């Protein structure tokens, strides 16, 4: 992965986080009712499923994205970095076995990934919930659903960004 691509993807995540957090503040519904889609996870999935570049480079970008996500999520520092880093490695490992050609594929993969990501976050941060972590499980499916719904749009935007960086479609594995 080129440094330019890494920077663009990190910046795209940053912009996405700013927009979603600001718009959510204007929403009359609380985050727990209509959860914010996991923008950072979608970028990590996109990069991981694309499979281009080395694992350390991908992981480095995932950690940077996670660091930004931590600043916007109100979570303890390191939580998003760790979970997104793991998500990136798993997405890379699955990239050669998964078909993400249609928006439906994208939504299903994003749904499963967001469910797994939410469960992983809860498992790691369970000590914060004072034995009440099981109740937080209810939030995982709704968050995963909103993430899955915006996944095709997010992938499309990221793909366009990618095409600007690497105009030759043959160089892109995801089309």
């Amino acid at each position, binding site marked *: 992965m080129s440094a330019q691509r890494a920077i663009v993807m990190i910046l795209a995540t940053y912009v996405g*986080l*700013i927009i*979603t*957090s*600001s*718009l*959510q*503040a*204007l929403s*009359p*519904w*609380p*985050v*727990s*009712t209509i959860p*914010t889609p996991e*923008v*950072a996870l979608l970028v990590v999935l996109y990069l991981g499923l694309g499979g281009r570049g080395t*694992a*350390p480079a991908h*992981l*480095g970008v995932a*950690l940077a994205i*996670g660091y*930004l*996500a931590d*600043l*916007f*999520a*109100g*979570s*303890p*520092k*390191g*939580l*998003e*970095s*760790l979970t997104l*880093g*793991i998500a990136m*490695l798993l997405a890379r490992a699955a990239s050669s076995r998964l078909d993400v050609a249609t928006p439906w594929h994208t939504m299903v993969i994003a749904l499963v990934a967001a469910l797994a990501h*939410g469960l992983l*976050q*809860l498992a*790691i*941060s369970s*000590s*914060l*919930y*004072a034995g*009440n*972590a*099981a*109740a*937080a*499980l*209810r*939030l995982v499916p*709704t*968050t995963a659903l909103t993430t899955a719904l915006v996944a095709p749009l997010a992938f499309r935007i990221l793909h366009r960004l990618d095409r600007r960086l690497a105009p030759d479609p043959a160089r892109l594995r995801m089309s």
Partner: protein
Amino acid sequence: MTLTRRARELVIVATLLAVPVLFLRANLAATDHLNVVDRAILRVSAPLQAGITGLVHGIGSGWNNYIALVHVKADNARLTDENARLRAELIAARNAAGREGDLEKLLVLRSSLQFDTIAARVIAVETSAFFRVVRIKLDRGGDEVKPGMAVIASAGIVGRVQRVFGGWCDVLLAADPKSSIDVVVARTGGRGVLKGVAGSDRYKTRIEYLERKDEAAEGDLIVTSGLGGFFPRDLPVGKVVKVDRHGFGLYQEVEVQPVVDFGKIRDVLVVVPRDAQPAGPTPEAIAPPDKAPAEPSKSEPAK
């Protein structure tokens, strides 16, 4: 890929993954620490968030007040359109009046408190469904604001300042599982610790360590105890909606519905304690949902 290269990649990956693990271990308990890079990023982000919030709000107002009314030029539909416009204006005026009402209550509360307050506006909320944090823009410089300070709205308490960066703060809402606020049941004077309920579909809280002898009942008003020095005494926190007394044990489980609608807060006050003993607001300054003034708690005054 050669074995050596693969082994090297594995080592790098393991090392990289160790970084967030170490960060997490260090920050799991205390989330208020910000390093230079954190502050720089947040200082850049907060104005952008405030800008987007303001822009979207402005576009919404523009749409309601101008663009949606452009087509009313047709003479034959003038009366109908004027009626629609007046209705829209009426709704806008009601909204504005409601907002001004909230601001007025905040001003009354501010003048009644015997310590400094800094006005602030919510500009963004957390992006994670598991945490309850809002980002606010302070009315004036954040030099006086420190992590742990109380944040209140006209109806009651909102939460605590979690971290400060320039003129912006992250506020840990009372409904966050990490939040803990010393409270009393206004009717009985029983003391406990208010904690957020993890994963609640709404913003709910519960009281821990409330002794069984201090029987709470549904509808009881919960107010701040004033202990700790950050929260003034007798500020409304919420109302008891569920009490669960097990057949054994020292404590009862009490679920509390906050008086502040965290999903709709826009304007808040950050309470800056003075060295002197913080005293509570006058009862009439606080307007809980049922308009009943907070009963004075029987707890000991804050030390």
